[in-house]
C-alpha cells in the first residue's frame, strides 16, 4: 500500500520523475486534470469526439453551405433526397443547411452562457468561501436567493420583456440565472481548502486575499470549475432551445431551437419527421457528449473513484 503513499502518511518520500518540458502551469493542468488517467475512460473520449464533431461542423460547415438557409423555395415539405439531404420545411427551406448553420449559434450561445455562469460562480463561491464572516453571509444570501428562484420560468418572463432582435439577451439571462449551484459547490470546496497548510503558508508569506483566492485556491479547483462549466453549458443549451421552442427567442435566427419551433408551429410534427428529428437528435447528442465529458471529469474530482488511496496519519487536533 505504501507504494502509493505519496500524499502524506508517516513517511512518504518517493520522488516522481518527469521529463516533461511543458511550462509548469501546463504540466500542472495535465496533472490536475489527470490526463494520463483519462484515456481509460471511453465515455470521456466519446464525449470529446462528439463535441469536436459539432465544433468542426459549426466552424467549417458554413463554408460548404451556399446561400441563405432561410431562403424560401417552392419545394414545400420535400422528403430527404440527394438535392435536399434532409428534405425541406413547409416554406421550402433546406433542413440540412439550417441544421449546419444552426450548430454555430446553438454551441456559441451555450458556451457563452456557460462562461458567464461559471465566472459568476467562481467569483461568488471562492470569495465567500475564503473570506467567511459577514462577506460570506451576504454572498451566501445572494447565492441562496438565486438558488431558489426557478431559473426557467424567470428566463421565460425576462425574455418576454427584452426585444427579440437577437439571441444574446437570452444567453445573458440564462448565464445570470444559472451560476448559484456552481457557486455553492465551489464555496464548500473553498471552505475545506481555506485552512490547509499551503494556504496558511501563503498568508504567512504575505500574499493578499486576491492572490490567495485566484492564484492559490482556484488552480486547485480547476477540475471542479471545468465540470461546473460543462454542466451549466448543457443546462444553458437546453434552456435556450426550450425558450426558442416556445417562441421566446429571436425566431428569425437560425438555431436548432428555432427549427423545432417552426416545425412545431407548422403542425407537421407527425408527418415531416425530417424537419424535427435531425435538430432533436443533434440536441440529444450534444447534450450527451457534454454529459459524458462531465462523467469523465467526475472520476478525477471525486477521489473515491480512483484506485489510488492515500493513507493519512491522524492529524493532531487542538495543538
Amino acid at each position, binding site marked *: 500500500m*505504501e507504494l502509493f503513499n505519496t500524499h502524506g502518511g508517516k513517511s512518504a518520500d518517493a520522488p516522481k520523475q518527469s521529463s516533461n518540458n511543458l511550462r509548469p502551469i501546463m504540466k500542472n493542468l495535465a496533472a490536475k486534470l489527470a490526463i494520463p488517467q483519462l484515456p481509460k475512460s471511453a465515455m470521456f473520449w466519446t464525449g470529446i469526439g462528439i463535441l469536436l464533431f459539432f465544433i468542426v461542423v459549426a466552424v467549417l460547415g458554413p463554408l460548404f453551405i451556399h446561400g441563405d438557409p432561410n431562403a424560401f423555395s417552392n419545394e414545400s415539405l420535400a422528403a430527404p433526397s440527394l438535392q435536399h439531404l434532409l428534405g425541406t420545411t413547409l416554406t421550402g427551406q433546406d433542413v440540412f443547411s439550417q441544421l449546419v448553420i444552426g450548430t454555430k449559434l446553438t454551441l456559441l450561445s451555450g458556451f457563452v452562457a456557460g462562461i458567464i455562469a461559471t465566472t459568476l460562480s467562481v467569483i461568488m463561491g471562492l470569495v465567500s468561501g475564503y473570506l467567511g464572516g459577514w462577506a460570506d453571509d451576504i454572498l451566501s444570501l445572494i447565492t441562496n436567493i438565486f438558488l431558489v428562484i426557478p431559473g426557467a420560468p424567470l428566463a421565460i418572463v425576462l425574455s418576454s420583456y427584452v426585444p427579440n432582435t437577437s439571441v444574446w439577451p437570452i444567453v445573458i439571462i440564462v448565464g445570470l440565472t444559472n451560476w448559484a449551484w456552481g457557486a455553492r459547490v465551489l464555496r464548500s470546496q473553498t471552505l475545506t481548502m481555506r485552512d490547509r497548510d499551503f494556504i496558511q503558508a501563503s498568508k504567512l508569506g504575505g500574499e493578499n486575499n486576491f492572490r490567495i483566492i485566484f492564484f492559490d485556491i482556484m488552480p486547485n479547483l480547476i477540475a471542479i470549475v471545468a465540470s461546473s462549466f460543462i454542466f451549466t453549458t448543457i443546462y444553458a443549451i437546453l434552456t435556450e432551445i426550450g425558450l426558442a421552442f416556445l417562441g421566446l427567442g429571436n425566431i428569425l435566427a437560425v438555431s436548432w431551437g428555432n427549427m423545432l419551433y417552426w416545425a412545431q408551429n407548422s403542425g407537421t410534427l407527425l408527418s415531416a419527421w425530417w424537419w424535427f428529428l435531425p435538430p432533436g437528435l443533434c440536441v440529444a447528442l450534444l447534450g450527451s457528449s457534454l454529459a459524458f465529458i462531465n462523467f469523465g471529469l467526475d472520476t478525477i474530482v471525486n477521489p473515491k473513484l480512483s484506485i489510488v488511496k492515500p*493513507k493519512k496519519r*491522524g492529524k493532531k487536533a487542538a495543538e
Partner: protein
Amino acid sequence: MTAQNNVILDVQHIGVDYFSRSGTVHAVSDVSFSVNRGEIFGLAGESGSGKSTLAFAVARLLKFPAEITGGQALFYPKTDAAQTEPIDILQLNKKQLRDFRWKKLSIVFQSAMNALNPVLNVQTQIIDTIRSHQPHLHRDEYYQRAVDLVKMVGIAPERLKSFPHQLSGGMRQRVVIAIALALNPELIIMDEPTTALDVVVQREILSEIQNLKKTFGFSVVFITHDLSLLTEICDHLAIMYAGKIVEQSNRVAIMQNTQHPYTFGLLHSFPSLYGEKKQILGIPGHPPDLRNVPTGCAFNPRCSFAVEACRSVIPTLQHVDASAADHLTACHLYDPRFQPNGPPKSLGRQVANDDPQAIGTDMLAGGQ
C-alpha cells in the same frame, strides 16, 4: 530452511507486483524469512521498502492492482492431530482463508480509527468478530468473552458500551488489539501499531503487547519505520530496502555487528538520549522511487562505500560471518571479488565529494 518445530511462519521467495499505468512495479521481490513461535519478528524499512506490502501479502490482504507473483508462505499450526502438514497461506481458497484468518492469524493496523466501525460500540464489534467464527455460542458467553478481552488489554469493562470516537487514541489501539486477540490467533501481524500514538502511550502499548505475548504465546510480525523501537522489542528483525531484505539477524547482532551500510545508517539516524553529543549524519539522498530503482544494489546511490559492482550486480542475502548462523546480509562489501581488501573497519558515513547523487543532501559542513 527445514521446518523446525519452533517455526510458525516460513515465507519463501515471495514477490509482489503493482500494476500501474506507467508499468509494473516490483514492490516486493524474492523475499524469504521465517518467524519462530512466540517471538516478535521485526520488519523495518522506510516508505517504498515494501514492508507493509510484504505483510499484507502474507495476510492475503492485497487487492488489485497488487498481485502476488510467486513464492509460498508456509504456516505451521500448533500440533494438532488433524493438521500435520504446513498450510500454504498463498494457496488457500476463499473459504479456507476466512477460517484461517483471525483464528490462526490476525492483523492490527496503524490507524485504529479506520479499523473500527464508527457507528458500532466496542462490545458489538468485538462480539461480531467472535460470532463470525464461533456462531453458536450463547449471548452471555459472547459478552463474557468481550469482557475478558478488554480486561486483558487494560480497558475497564464499562468502556464496552463506548463508541470509538469516545475513546482516546491509545484506548482505540487497545481495542483493536483486543479484537485481534479475540480468537486466540497464533500469529499477529502488526503494521505500525504505535506510529500515530504519543511516546508514552506507545510505550504502554508496547509493554502490553509484550505481556500478552508472554501470557498467550503468540508470535508477532511487527512492522515499523522506527528501527530504534524494533531493536528494543524484537527477537529477530529484517531490514528492507526497495522491496528486498538487505540484512536480517537477531536483535543483538543487528545492533552490535551491523553489516549493511543502510542498516548502519538507519541505526545512526536517531539521536540518542545518552552518551556524548556528537555530530550525526543520517543517510544522504532519499529512498528510491520503485518505478525507477537504481540498477545493481538499490542502495548504491546513497552508499558511501559503493564500488562499480554495486551499480551492476544485484547482491543476494548471504552469510558473511561464518560464526553467526542467523545473520544474513546482501552487500558486496563482504564479497572478496569486489572488495579485495576486505570490508571497511567502520561503516560510518564517509563524505563522498565526487558522488553526484549525494548532491542535495550535504550536511553541516556548509553550502556548496
